[in-house]
């Protein structure tokens, strides 16, 4: 009776409890020796050692810890937050300088901007970015929401292509309009400008009341 921890209950509906619950101990092998006296509700335990790979990876992880802590905070052979950031910023600065000196040159003088407004392909190319960032305040048709109506004849800061281009570049932070010159390339901003110009006179539904000066074109 003491060999097994469970005496099967003849009334049990459970088949598996009618079976002997434990295998006999393996004798004569290094592994899988059952430990005498370790019996808990029928559960027994083997006296196996910990797997070697487990022990060694654990030791390696523990050894890594002081190396990393000292490397970051004492001996400085691993970058900390500040060093990481400084390096990344320097990289970025270099990318920008290289681009400025070798990248495609795109004319943004008043004459060039005026030419872009005459090119329907430029305006069409600007629509997606307009919808992504400008439409939130100026409406998806440029009818004006929080920001002014862009389709009427009234302008707060000038209606010339270079005025609009500058507005997109620098924004009006005090009025809540962010600058976009770091988010979009010169060409993308010129396309957005061309798109804004193309909205003129479209008389969209729900147009906001005029703001600024009447500009006759």
């Amino acid at each position, binding site marked *: 009776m003491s060999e097994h921890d469970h005496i099967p209950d003849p009334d049990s509906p459970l088949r598996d409890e009618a079976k002997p619950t434990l295998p006999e101990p393996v004798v004569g092998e290094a592994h899988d020796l059952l430990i005498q006296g370790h019996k808990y509700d029928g559960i027994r335990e083997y006296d196996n050692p*910990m797997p070697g790979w*487990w022990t060694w990876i654990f030791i390696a992880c523990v050894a890594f810890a002081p190396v990393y802590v000292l490397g970051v905070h004492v001996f400085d052979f691993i970058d900390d937050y500040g060093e990481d950031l400084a390096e990344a910023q320097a990289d970025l600065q270099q990318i920008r300088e290289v681009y400025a000196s070798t990248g495609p040159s795109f004319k943004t003088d008043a004459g060039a901007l005026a030419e872009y407004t005459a090119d329907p392909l430029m305006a069409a190319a600007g629509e997606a970015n307009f919808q992504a960032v400008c439409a939130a305040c100026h409406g998806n048709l440029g009818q004006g929401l929080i920001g002014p109506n862009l389709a009427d004849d009234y302008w707060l800061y000038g209606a010339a292509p270079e005025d609009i281009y500058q507005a997109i570049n620098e924004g009006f932070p005090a009025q809540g309009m962010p600058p976009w010159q770091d988010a979009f390339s010169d060409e993308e901003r010129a396309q957005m400008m061309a798109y804004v110009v193309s909205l003129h006179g479209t008389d969209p539904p729900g147009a906001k009341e005029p703001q600024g000066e009447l500009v006759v074109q």
Partner: protein
Amino acid sequence: MADTPVSPGATAALAATAAPGQAHLDVFRYDDKIVRHFTLATILWGFVGMLVGVIIALQLPFPEANLGEYLSFGRLRPLHTNAVIFAFAGNAIFAAIYYSTQRLCKARMFSDWMSRFHFWGWQGIIVAAAITLPLGITTSKEYAELEWPIDIAITVVWVVFAVNFFGTLWRRREKHMYVALWFYIATIVTVAVLHLGNSMAIPSSFWNSYPIYRGVQDALVQWWYGHNAVAFFLTTPFLGLMYYFLPKAAERPVFSYRLSIVHFWSLVFIYIWAGPHHLNYTAVPEWAATLGMVFSVMLWMPSWGGMINGLFTLRGAWHKLRDSAVLKMFVIGITFYGMSTFEGPMLSVKSVNALSHYTDWNIAHVHSGALGWNGFMTFGMIYWLVPRLWKRELWSQRLANAHFWTGTIGILLYVLAMYTSGITQGLMWRAFDDAGRLLYPDFMETVIQIKPMYWVRLIGGTLYLGGVVMLMVNVWQTIRRAPKDLPDPAVAVPAISGTPAKDLVTS
């Protein structure tokens, strides 16, 4: 040290037949009714918590599913996490602890009154959470959202639970404590410390309070709590559950006692340090994040010690998997435990964390833990327990197998979708073009990109919930056919002199 299950009528006779000179036999009954209570509560709240999960998974790609004030994402998400962690997993670990502790201690629970108080108190707390969170009553601290009156109730219930548990240890008829009990001890004391430490607040009214910590202190305390809620609510009690139910179901000895000792103590000692890895690169001092990271790395093998002791215990029993949905679920649960405890240390490494943090990668990680490890360990336990608790064969093994496969496919869809989404968005956030500008300056571009993955996640989650519905049907059909009268099983074990036995059967 044999114990003898005895039929109800024979108890008095058994006690009387113990001959003079022989060891005196104590005859007593296990309290299985309380385990039935916790088991049913586990299933019910599991369904509710996961249903809320599916609803909020729908709300993400389809915001029209935010139906008004009380059912919008920001209020339902804490309800989902609380329901799954504290209601589903909570009731599951209580069922496991109440069933196995009595048998490992060879004693009835210390106090029936405390057991009932624990059960109904905990369900009351869950109901209070389910009412207050949709009302917007929240502290905002993750997994500790409940306001101070409920926190006090949790403290009271937990203390009663602890007294009941340690009282049972005190009255045990087994000299030594099995490894499952070690993990239960770690759970009970640490959760108490964490809960008290993180909930310290000054009330401004009955439903509002402010933590006594501010800024970086509050952040550090919160993630000491948050990470160790994972450790001591979702890991240690489930390891205890595994150490009891897996060898029982496989009918195999535990692989290595020595590994049990080493991985228990290293896990308990190291886990508590790992919290600040949730705050890598934030305003907490970098040394704290460094400690969080290196201790997370050291935690890898202690966690895998549990996985090894689980999987290697099945050596010589792998053939049983074919017929046993219980063992299949345990194996997939332990496998997910191994995967997510490798992933956790990896995610805590600063350079990986720089990409993964704030993205869906974390969502994938916690769900491989919660659905894979906690979910399947719980389901395996329930399928093993229900026939024993209700004295009736499981209604359908085929349905249990269908649950296994549906749930497994569900998890895989879920985590693959969230890995894809998390890595995609993480890479898009950091991408620069060759002019040195952000490639995706508009946040919305990164949202549009991952939206399809939200639909895939919804399908995965729905499949997993479908598995839970199969569990409900199977358990319901089993219980319906069970005998009406379910007396607590009586057992006879040799008495240990000096043990204050108060659970003896007298009639």
